[in-house]
């Protein structure tokens, strides 16, 4: 049995590296990770500021004193003026006056007033042409029944009316705001007039608080 003594120095391939090299390498890895995370934070901050900046014009629309969108006449739709023939002259005059004031003094392009089922319709509406006044009145009555507008008991305001799949196709294309004011004061009182007042506009957010208060006051004229 023989023992061989190694005279050459030990040079293991898998020996541990020196501490300084390890520390430098780990520091570089840590710094790179830190840089990436701070860059990511900075990106998130930039994106947040960018989103907020883009949202500013939308916020500005609702500030007091902001410019009100102007109405435009609908490109399609018929201009009509229909009053039920079975109401008295005095009420006819009042309805004509009220619809005129609403069209003139607000950005309304279409107005409908219903009092106990009798209608006054004025403005631009999406109704069939070539119909007599009586036929138009009956047509509007049917549409109102389909929607169930006579059953509305609280005010409805759609400042950004997007149109629906239901029977509101009577409103002209381009309608952006709709406001419905019921004439029913108390559902238990049957002697009070019932009905509604509907106004529509081609401008978005067309009816401010003041406009709605004024429309409510107009509705009071017919509420009795």
């Amino acid at each position, binding site marked *: 049995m023989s023992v061989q003594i190694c005279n050459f120095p030990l040079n293991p391939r898998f020996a541990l590296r020196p501490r300084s090299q390890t520390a430098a390498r780990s520091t570089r890895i840590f710094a790179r990770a830190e*840089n990436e995370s*701070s*860059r990511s*934070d*900075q*990106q998130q*901050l*930039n994106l947040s*500021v960018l989103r*907020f*900046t883009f949202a*500013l014009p*939308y*916020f*500005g629309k*609702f*500030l*007091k*004193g902001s410019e009100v969108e102007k109405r435009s006449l609908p490109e399609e739709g018929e*201009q009509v*003026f*229909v*009053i039920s023939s079975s109401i008295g002259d*005095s009420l*006819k*005059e*009042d309805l*004509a*006056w009220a619809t*005129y*004031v609403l069209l*003139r*003094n607000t950005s309304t392009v279409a107005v409908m007033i219903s009092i106990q*089922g009798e209608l*006054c319709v004025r403005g631009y509406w999406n109704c069939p042409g070539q119909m007599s006044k009586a036929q138009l009145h009956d047509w509007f009555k049917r549409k109102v*029944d*389909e929607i*169930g*507008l*006579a*059953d*509305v008991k609280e005010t*409805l*305001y*759609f*400042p*950004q009316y997007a149109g*629906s799949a*239901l*029977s*509101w196709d009577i409103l002209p294309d381009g309608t952006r705001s709709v406001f419905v004011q019921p004439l029913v004061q108390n559902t238990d009182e049957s002697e009070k007039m019932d009905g509604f007042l509907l106004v529509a506009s081609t401008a978005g*957010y067309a009816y401010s608080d*003041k*406009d709605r*208060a*004024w429309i*409510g*006051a107009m509705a*009071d*004229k017919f509420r009795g």
Partner: protein
Amino acid sequence: MEAARFINQIQIPKNPNRRSSSRPARFIRASSSQEPKSYRGPKPSKNLVADFVSRNDDSVRSLPIYVGGASLLAVLFNRAVSGIAPVADASSSQSRADLLALGLAVTNLLTGLVWLSIRPKTITPVEPQGVDCKVLEPNLPPSILSELLWAWESLKVATCCKSLVIVYNGICLLQIGMAAKSPDVNQAVLVNTAKLMTGSVYRGVFKSKAQSYLANLSLYPGRSELPFLPPNTQAVILQPLGDKGIAVIGGNTIRGFTSSDQASKTFSSCSLEKTNRTSKKSWFAHPCLGMDFFNWGEA
């Protein structure tokens, strides 16, 4: 569906004297117009952003300044601690991103400053000094009475109106709302129509036949011709009612009546004047309906 349910609940009772027949009981067909159908349209949704901005107008106006300032500081701080050389070049992606962020921050700051500078001035309403009064001309027909009271209610709800006086044919038909307090007794100062009609304010309105809006009443010497209004009335509209009457509308806010309010008063005066006139005229020939920019036509 409601009509069907109604039909199912109604049944004609059988007449016991009648010979029984094999025919089934007849039902009353309920007309759909008797009972309104339930509303099947869309329901309005709440716009939380619009509500928040409307309620917190001042805070929202200054918000872009805070956001812009904070993002500016954040960019500078990040630049300082990240160890990047403080040079204003766009050689590295980090520098370019910082430049963009600075631009956005400055945009926000400037937007906030613009919003604050164009904020509408808020004018505080003034509580009228006087007493509540409601004086109506006796023997008024019910139609005129209801019209006058409706006019008052609509003005009270929709505008800053606190006092309303209507004089027609030399008679004060209505004095309602707040009125000046008489120094001798704890009562309202009533309208002296003779004195009012001889005053320069009244004659001026009738000469011009147009509405007169005194936006800041304290600046006008003609204030003394309206002693029935509370002494601290801020704004007044003098609206002629045809050729025979005038409506005096007092408000509690300087420049409180907007242009749409003034137009509304003009139209309301048409209605009041029509009611007060005794002669019957076709409404469609009334001057108020002469201006038809849509050319609505007649019903």
